[in-house]
C-alpha cells in the first residue's frame, strides 16, 4: 500500500499542491494530469528531493515522511528508484558504471534483479562500454530505467520518462516499461500526461488537476465515469476494457476478444490466444441504434442498456451503456438524443467498428 498525503505552496501566492491518495502495491499507479498540475512535484516529494511543508508518505508499512512527528527520511535512504524525464545519466561514467552506481550503494542483503537480468531485459548489453553522450534518447531512458531498477528500490518513481522522446523513440521504450511492469513485482508510481501510457501501464489511476486529486481508482472504473472531463472530454477518451484474446481468424483478418459484456472483433492481433489485453473503446467510435441494425459494415453490434445521459461538449451528450458487467461510453450529438428520444433504462444496440482498433488509429491518438 502506498499512502501519500502532501501539501506544499510555492511562495505566498504561488502554486499550491494539496494532494492525497492511497494505491495498492505492487502495481502501477499512474498519476495523470495536464502539464503544471503538480504531478511531478508530487513525485519528487515522494522521492524526498522536495521537502513539502506538510505531509505523510507511507510505503508498505514504512514511513518515509511524516511532518507531524518530524520524521523525514533523506532521499539517499528512501530506496526510491527514480527515472527522470531527462535520464540524468552521469556523463563522465560509462553505461556500465552508471548502471552499477545504485547497485554498489544498495544495502547488503537487499534483494532485487541481477545485473545480467536487467541488462538483458532492457536490451542494453551492447551499450555497456559507451558513454551516455553516445546514446540515443531512447537508449538513455532504458539505461536510466536499468540504473534505477538495479539500486534495489522498494518503489520505482518515473517522472514522464517518455515525454522528452519523439514518437518513434517512445514506441521503442514503451514496451520495455511494460516488460518491467510484468517481470518485477515492484510498486511503480508513474507520472504522465499521455493517455496511451496510462492505457498500457496503469493498474491504478490518480487524476490530478491544479494541484489536487480529482479522482483515484482502478483505470477501468475511472474511464467509464462521465463526471471526469479530464478523461472523457478528450478526443481519445472512452471506456477501458479488460479483455482476453479468445481466437484469431486470419482468413477474415480479425481477432476475437472476450470482455465482461460480450465479444469484440478487432483487427488481427499478434499476441497468443489467452493473452490479457486492455482496450480503450473511444467514446467517439461508439454509436447506438434503437433497433438491431442489418446490412452494416460494423463488426461489433452489441446489445446494451442505456444507463445515463451526461453532458459532453456543447451540443453533444455522453451516453453510459451497460453491457453485462461492463460499461461503454458513447459520444453522440444532442440532436441524436432528441431525435431517437433516448432515455435511461432504454435497451439499445452499441455499434463499434473494428477498424477503430487498428494500430494506426491508436497511434494517431497519441498526443
Amino acid at each position, binding site marked *: 500500500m502506498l499512502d501519500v498525503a502532501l501539501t506544499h505552496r510555492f511562495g505566498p501566492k504561488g502554486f499550491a499542491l494539496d494532494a492525497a491518495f492511497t494505491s495498492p502495491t505492487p502495481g502501477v499507479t499512474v498519476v495523470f494530469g495536464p502539464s503544471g498540475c503538480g504531478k511531478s512535484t508530487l513525485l519528487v516529494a515522494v*522521492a*524526498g*528531493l522536495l521537502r513539502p511543508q506538510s505531509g505523510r508518505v507511507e510505503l508498505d508499512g514504512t514511513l518515509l515522511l511524516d511532518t507531524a512527528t518530524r520524521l523525514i527520511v*533523506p*532521499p*539517499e*535512504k*528512501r*530506496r*526510491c*528508484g*527514480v527515472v*527522470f524525464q*531527462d535520464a*540524468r545519466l*552521469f*556523463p*563522465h561514467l560509462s553505461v556500465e558504471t552508471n548502471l552499477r*552506481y*545504485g547497485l554498489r*550503494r*544498495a544495502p547488503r542483503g537487499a534483494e532485487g534483479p541481477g545485473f545480467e537480468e536487467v541488462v538483458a531485459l532492457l536490451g542494453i548489453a551492447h551499450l555497456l562500454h559507451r*558513454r*551516455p*553522450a*553516445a546514446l540515443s534518447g531512447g537508449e538513455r531512458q532504458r539505461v536510466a530505467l536499468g*540504473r*534505477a531498477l538495479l*539500486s534495489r528500490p522498494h518503489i520505482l518513481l518515473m517522472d514522464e520518462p517518455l515525454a522528452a522522446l519523439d514518437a518513434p523513440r517512445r514506441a521503442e521504450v514503451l514496451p520495455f516499461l511494460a516488460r518491467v511492469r510484468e517481470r518485477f513485482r515492484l510498486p511503480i508510481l508513474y507520472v504522465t500526461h499521455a493517455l496511451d501510457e496510462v492505457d498500457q501501464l496503469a493498474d491504478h489511476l490518480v487524476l490530478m488537476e491544479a494541484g489536487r486529486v480529482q479522482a483515484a481508482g482502478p483505470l477501468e472504473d475511472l474511464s467509464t465515469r462521465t463526471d471526469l472531463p479530464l478523461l472523457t472530454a478528450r478526443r481519445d477518451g472512452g471506456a477501458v476494457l479488460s479483455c482476453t484474446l479468445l481466437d484469431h481468424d486470419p482468413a477474415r483478418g480479425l481477432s476475437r476478444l472476450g470482455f465482461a459484456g460480450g465479444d469484440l472483433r478487432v483487427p488481427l492481433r499478434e499476441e497468443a490466444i489467452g493473452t490479457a489485453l486492455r482496450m480503450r473503446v473511444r467514446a467517439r467510435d461508439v454509436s447506438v441504434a434503437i433497433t438491431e441494425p442489418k446490412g452494416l459494415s460494423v463488426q461489433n453490434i452489441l446489445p446494451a442498456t442505456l444507463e445515463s445521459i451526461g453532458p459532453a461538449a456543447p451540443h453533444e451528450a455522453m451516453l453510459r451503456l451497460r453491457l453485462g458487467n461492463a460499461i461503454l461510453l458513447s459520444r453522440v450529438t444532442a440532436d441524436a438524443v432528441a431525435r431517437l428520444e433516448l432515455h435511461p433504462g432504454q435497451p439499445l444496440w452499441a455499434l463499434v467498428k473494428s477498424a477503430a482498433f487498428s494500430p494506426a488509429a491508436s497511434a494517431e491518438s497519441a498526443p
Partner: protein
Amino acid sequence: MLLTPEEWEAVRLSLSVALRSVAFSLPPAVLAAWLLARGRFPGRALLDALVHLPLVLPPVVVGWLLLVTFGLHGPVGALLNEWFGIRLVFTTAGASLATAVMSFPLIVRAVRLSLDAVDPGLEAAARSLGAGPLDRFVTVTLPLILPGILSGTITAFAAGLGEFGAVITFASNIPGETQTLPLAIYSATQTPGGEATAAKLATISFILAVAGLLLAEFAGRRLSLLLGRLPR
C-alpha cells in the same frame, strides 16, 4: 640563451613559489567556489566580495594587509612564531602565501563557472541512488568540475609566476629567498648595465606565461572530452 646562476635561481624560485601558492590555495578555493555556487546562507554576498577583493585591490595593499596580519607583531604572525616558530615575512613561504592570496580568486572563478555548468539534477539523481553528501561530491560533482579546477590551477600558476606587488611588500626582495622573476627584472632595471639580464628574464616570463595559458586551454578541452561533456 645563457643565464647566470643568480638568474637561474630567480626562475627556479618563481616556479617554486607559484607551485606552492597553488597547492596552498586550491582546496580552500574549491570549497569557496562550492559554497558560492550551491550554498544558501547569510553572508554569501560578503564571502563573494571577500573572495574577489585581491582582484580589485592594489597588490601592494594586499601585501600590506598580509604584513599587518602575518608580520612578527601581527595578530596571526606573532602566534605562528611563538607556537610553531614559523616566520612568514621575508621568506619563500611568505612569498608563496602572498602569491596564493592574489591568485585565489582566479581559481575560485574558474571552479565556480564549471560548477554552475554541472546540472544539479545529476546530484539529485545520485542522491536518489543512495549516495550521501561526500559520496556525491567525490563521484559526481568533482569529476565534472575537474576541467575548471585544472584550468583555474594552471592560470593561477602562470599568474603566480609574475606576482610582484604583494610579494615585494610582504616578503621583500631577497635574492635566493624571495626574489622571483618579476622582482629580479625590477632589480635588473634598477642596476646600471642590467638591461641584458632584464631582457633575458622578461623573455622567460613571456614564454612561461604563454605556455601556461596554452596548457590550461588544452588540458581543459582534453578533460572535457574525457569526461564526456563534449560530443566526440
